[in-house]
């Protein structure tokens, strides 16, 4: 397992390196000078020059890049340009909110996805399977902004049982926090849960049709055990890979869901940072997201190998 990790590490680092280049260059392509927008419309050229100097914008680009990466490696993210405060604090606050939302959604994805998958593949009654099929198609197709509006209409406007937006941290006030978390997490989770469910259903159906299940059936193994001990372990590895990819998608989707439910997370921060040309915030934020994505892939790969003995022994 350790060897496997070591073998994967170089390519993961390479992706991060390339991503940092791309992020840095893209931001420099954005039209407009942060110093000008920071100084305000009435500022004279010397004020702008002073700001440029303070922020190090006059340095050659390669040097700016080295400073940025150097700061990241030493843990010094520096101050934000425009939003105010330290970049690390801004990202820290946003990260807490986004992680909370993503983990909440991930929980929904796993629970709903497993339910969709197992019921869809093995439910005896036809109408149960049909219902699962319709729900999966719906959850997969309908975009989060539609489900978001529908959820708010139902739970906040009609039933008035859950708030329509905002956030209270689950850590400081668990019961209230969960109420605020439920709708956005569900809204974020539905498409991924549907994909996971569909994959799991296909995987289980395929595994149940395999020769080895026939072997076990002929040996008198109980159907319940056929499902959980023989078919499911074979259906899981691709689903784990998918779950890893979906975690990345959840992070991306969080940007939208945060906008719908006024959830003060990284998405909101990214939006602010981009419109106000706050390089440090946006750079660090994007690199952080890519890092999380790469890490998740890495973990996924290891779990996959652990689940599949054929790869484990390779």
């Amino acid at each position, binding site marked *: 397992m350790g060897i496997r990790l070591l*073998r994967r590490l170089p390519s993961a680092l390479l992706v991060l390196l390339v991503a940092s280049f791309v992020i840095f260059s893209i931001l420099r392509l954005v039209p407009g000078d942060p110093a000008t927008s920071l100084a305000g419309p009435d500022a004279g050229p010397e004020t702008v020059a002073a700001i440029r100097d303070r922020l190090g914008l006059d340095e050659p680009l390669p040097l700016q890049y080295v400073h940025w990466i150097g700061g990241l490696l030493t843990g010094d993210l520096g101050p934000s340009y425009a939003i105010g405060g330290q970049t690390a604090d801004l990202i820290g606050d946003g990260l807490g909110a986004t992680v909370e939302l993503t983990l909440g959604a991930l929980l929904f994805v796993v629970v709903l996805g497993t339910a969709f998958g197992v019921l869809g593949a093995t439910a005896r009654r036809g109408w149960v399977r049909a219902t699962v099929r319709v729900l999966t198609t719906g959850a997969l197709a309908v975009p989060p902004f539609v489900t978001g509006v529908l959820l708010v209409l139902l739970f906040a406007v009609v039933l008035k049982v859950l708030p329509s937006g905002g956030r209270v941290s689950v850590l400081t006030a668990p019961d209230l926090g969960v109420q605020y978390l439920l709708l956005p997490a569900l809204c974020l989770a539905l498409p991924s849960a549907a994909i996971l469910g569909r994959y799991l259903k296909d995987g289980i159906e395929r595994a149940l049709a*395999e*020769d*080895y*299940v*026939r*072997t*076990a*059936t*002929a*040996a*008198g*193994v*109980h*159907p319940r*055990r056929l499902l959980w*001990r*023989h078919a499911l*372990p*074979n259906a899981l590895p691709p689903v784990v890979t998918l779950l890893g990819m979906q975690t990345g998608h959840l992070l991306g989707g969080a940007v939208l869901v945060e906008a719908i439910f006024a959830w003060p997370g990284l998405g909101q921060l990214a939006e602010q940072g981009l419109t106000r040309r706050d390089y440090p915030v946006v750079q660090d934020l994007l690199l952080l997201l890519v890092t999380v994505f790469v890490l998740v892939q890495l973990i996924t790969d290891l779990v996959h190998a652990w*689940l*599949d*003995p*054929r790869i484990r*022994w*390779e």
Partner: protein
Amino acid sequence: MTASALLEVRGLDVEFTAPDGTLTRAVRDVSFTLDRGETLAVVGESGSGKSTTALALLRMLPGTGRVARGSVLLDGQDLAAADEAELRRVRGARIGMVFQDPMTALNPVLTAGAHLDEVLRAHGGRDKAARLARAVELLDLVGIPDPERRLDDHPHRFSGGQRQRILIAMALAGEPDVLVADEPTTALDATVQDQILTLLGDLNRRTGTALVLITHNMGVVARACERVLVMYGGTVVEDGPTAEVLTRPRHPYTAGLLAAVPRLSAPSGTRLAGIPGAPPDLSVLTDGCAFADRCAFTEDRCRTVTPPLVTLTTRAASGEGTVRVACPPATSRSAPLPAAPPPARIDRPRPGAVVLEAVGLRKTYRGRGLRGRPLTALDDVSLTLAAGETLGIVGESGSGKSTLARVLAHAHPSDSGTLRLDGVDISRPSRRELHTVRRRIQMVFQDPYASLNPRMTAGQIIAEPLHAFGIGDRSRRAQRVEELLLLVGLDPSAADRRPRSFSGGQRQRIGIARALAPEPSVLICDEPVSALDVSVQAQIVGLLTDLQRDLGLSLVFIAHDLAVVRQVSHRIAVMHRGRIVETGSADEVCENPADPYTRALLAAAPDPVPPARHREPRSTQVPA
């Protein structure tokens, strides 16, 4: 019908419903009995219903399959009417089952020990330690060396033969009265097949477990079973002692099948009679004998009345016995059918000068993954092929024979070595030279399903090389396609149909027509008949032999079945692990093999000749 029969199947009908509602009767009115400790072979070609019958015994039919009528009595208990819980108590405990492909029949994520443990658990083994001990015992019983250590290994760590042994151990774990083995050796090499058949025979003698062996291979029947049930079109056509049925067949189908089986003892140049036509389509089958359309003895009544199984008494040297036959013309004659005409020798011209020559060919495939070991497929292979000659290349899976075919046909390049065509070096041809070379060397592929583009019609497929080599204009090409179709024995109207609507044998004919289109002088045939049923195989082999004689082709005929290779080849090259270990005239190699590997291959090849009584079990070993 003894009262003490262990298993009695009466009037079994199995039906499948297609998505469009058509009903297919895959098994029709099958009845037979099995005594304790008996070994029974169920033999037939694809679509005969033999595997479906085996699966129906334990009600393990796939998809929409169901037992529509009839009963399966195991010591009086009707399994056809049993509920799921009752069936589970029978499956693995009273009837064990082994399936065809050991590569897919074991669960990749479970260890060998876990597989056995699952069966033992399912049948009430509560004590974990006892189950473990029993698992070791079982692995030992089926001949897995060092069983304690191997318990924790996953299936991919075992060879194909060892996996089949584990499956047999699983089937025997519940100490069943019957072991049903569905084509247990079809996916295995001949030498491994021989070992598995020996194991099954041993187990039958030692444990007294009755054996039902489903197979398409007459050699396996002769090798392993006392009694044989011949199936065709979903029905039993003949049932009797192996020695009797294989030497004095009464049903015309049995006789035809036996005449179509290539025999290792037959000298080179023997022509076998195939059975004309193709197996019946069960979804359109009506009353009457399913074999009537392909039978030489068909009478009017054969087409209107489904023939009943009639019991006859035989008086063979081995003693009195009974044979059941479903053929009114044969039973009313009350004597065995007139023997098929003895296999004819083919009149072949002598081979001429060397056309194709290979010297020191090598090919290595890069290993998979970072630490994958490279695989040497060809290791210093040299051969010559004369005009009008057939060179047979025989070897087991992984011997490199298919790679050799592809290198010779320039489908893959070799790593090193020289290829000469009429003395001209063609090992590293330019694109222009390659074009000329390909016109001279064509190839026929193993899998008649995969080698035809599903989106093109037969006519387009055959015209493809004509187009590529710029032969003729549109109307000339259409005419040539027609000629080629006739040449390979197909109706010219077949040109407009897509591969999907042809049978396996017909598709192989299309593949041959395509290869012949640019009028090549060398034809490389890579296992051209191994995907086909025996009766069809004989047709295709006959076609290739005729084409060679009439067109003066040089043929490289690659196969794993030594008997077929001997029959068609002038000379034989035996391949093992990427090397040619022996070359010689076909008869010489088969009669007086020089290499130990050739000897092992010959010893392992099952011949459809019933063994003499109480014969010593043969042991074969592959030299490492």
